[in-house]
């Protein structure tokens, strides 16, 4: 089945390595994906922070496009985009007034036929067995602190994920790859989100605390699922020595020995290659 792919703005720029590594994984996993044509920004925090109409209509334009392009499923890569798109769809489906607003702004009503799917759900559907079949190089020697951030499961009634089972699934996925899970209590602490640009001092103190706890748990890297968490965790922090911050998709790509791996590993601000070399993965 063909599924639509909604990368979101970061994946075309600062989070290219997340997009590339996931894109390269889809074929071996038997998923045929096509990028949603002419997609636009979901509006992210700035839209919902200032004007509910912009947030609603920017998000809904993508769902209308998916419907127009006969895509039954739309894979979303960024947790923030996912929450924004889901929230807009929920509003339209539960409030006829919001539906009216969307048809007026975008020229036609939303039929509600598109299923929004977060990329991790796809990995869950693929299942452990098939995941194992891709494994060429188990991630032995990688002890990762899994950093879920804020919006991966919150709010649960929008994402549809139960925090506990969801986090166990991610831990199991990481173990399936051969990695060791570092036990820590900071996986759900906010990275500071967009304050990373406007309040660097505050965000540095948040990042320092996250790094300190990851290190204390014995981790040699932080594993992330969100482009904004990734940038903040690499770019901010002052006191604590930096830890490499890798996307789960990069680690999957590394374990599956995908050809473009070295290219995206070279783009990090905190070079992960020394840790990977030490684990004999490069």
């Amino acid at each position, binding site marked *: 089945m063909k599924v639509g792919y909604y990368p979101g703005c970061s994946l075309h720029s600062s989070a290219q390595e997340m997009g590339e590594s996931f894109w390269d994984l889809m074929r071996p996993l038997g998923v045929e994906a096509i990028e949603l044509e002419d997609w636009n920004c979901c509006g992210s925090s700035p839209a919902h922070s*200032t004007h509910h109409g912009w947030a609603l209509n920017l998000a809904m334009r993508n769902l209308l496009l998916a419907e127009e392009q006969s895509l039954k499923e739309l894979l979303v890569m960024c947790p923030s985009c996912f929450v924004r798109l889901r929230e807009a769809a929920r509003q339209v489906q539960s409030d006829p007034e919001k539906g009216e607003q969307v048809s007026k*702004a975008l020229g036609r009503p939303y039929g509600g036929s598109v299923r929004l799917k977060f990329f991790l759900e796809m990995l869950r559907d693929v299942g452990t067995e098939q995941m194992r079949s891709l494994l060429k190089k188990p991630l032995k020697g990688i002890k990762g602190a899994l950093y879920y951030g804020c919006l991966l499961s*919150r709010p649960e009634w929008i994402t549809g994920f139960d925090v506990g089972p969801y986090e166990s699934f991610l831990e199991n996925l990481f173990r399936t790859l051969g990695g060791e899970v570092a036990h820590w209590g900071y996986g759900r602490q906010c990275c500071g989100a967009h*304050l990373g640009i406007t309040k*660097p001092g505050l965000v540095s103190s948040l990042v320092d605390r996250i790094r300190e706890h990851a290190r204390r748990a014995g981790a040699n890297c932080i594993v992330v699922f969100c482009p904004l968490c990734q940038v903040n965790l690499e770019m901010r922090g002052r006191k604590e020595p930096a830890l490499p911050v890798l996307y789960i998709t990069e680690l999957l790509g590394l374990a599956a020995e995908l050809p473009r791996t070295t290219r995206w590993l070279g783009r990090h601000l905190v070079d992960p290659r020394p840790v990977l070399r030490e684990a004999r993965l490069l």
Partner: protein
Amino acid sequence: MAAEFLEEVSRRSGQRFEGCYHCLSCGGGCPVVEAMDYNPNQIIRMVQRGMREEVLGSKAIWVCVGCFSCLSQCPNRVHIPAMMDTLREMALEAGVRVAEPEILAFHRAFLGEVRRWGRVYELGLVLKYKLSTGKFFEDFSVGFKMMAKGRLQLLPSRIKGEEQIKRIMNGTRRLR
């Protein structure tokens, strides 16, 4: 007057605030509370008391990043992030002096990119934000490193449905 403000915030955010009994769970779990002038529960109390000017002129409403940590810890599920969205929108409508001009400058630069290209052109966003706040040299080296590593797209990409985006975003100029 007090009832009017409370009623408006309540209607627009879809929230009822009577449930709040000031247990302080929201502020306790808030990652950015130290940069706020009032704790989230204090904002609720001020809304109930009709303190329109103080609330709309506060730092707290802009510092909130919407991480939903307060909401998952609130025993009565008061949707504080939805309340904050409404309060920011009301502050902009009322034209009050925004207590966190840099955060507003960021939102403005971001939405300007969306309005112009349909997507966020990150390099343009950063430059616009830096120019509008005069903080041009802050983060110069990290920005340079990101460029050198090819982590910032050098040229923007424009979508075809720009007319639709302009129609949606009509009034972005109001943020100026």
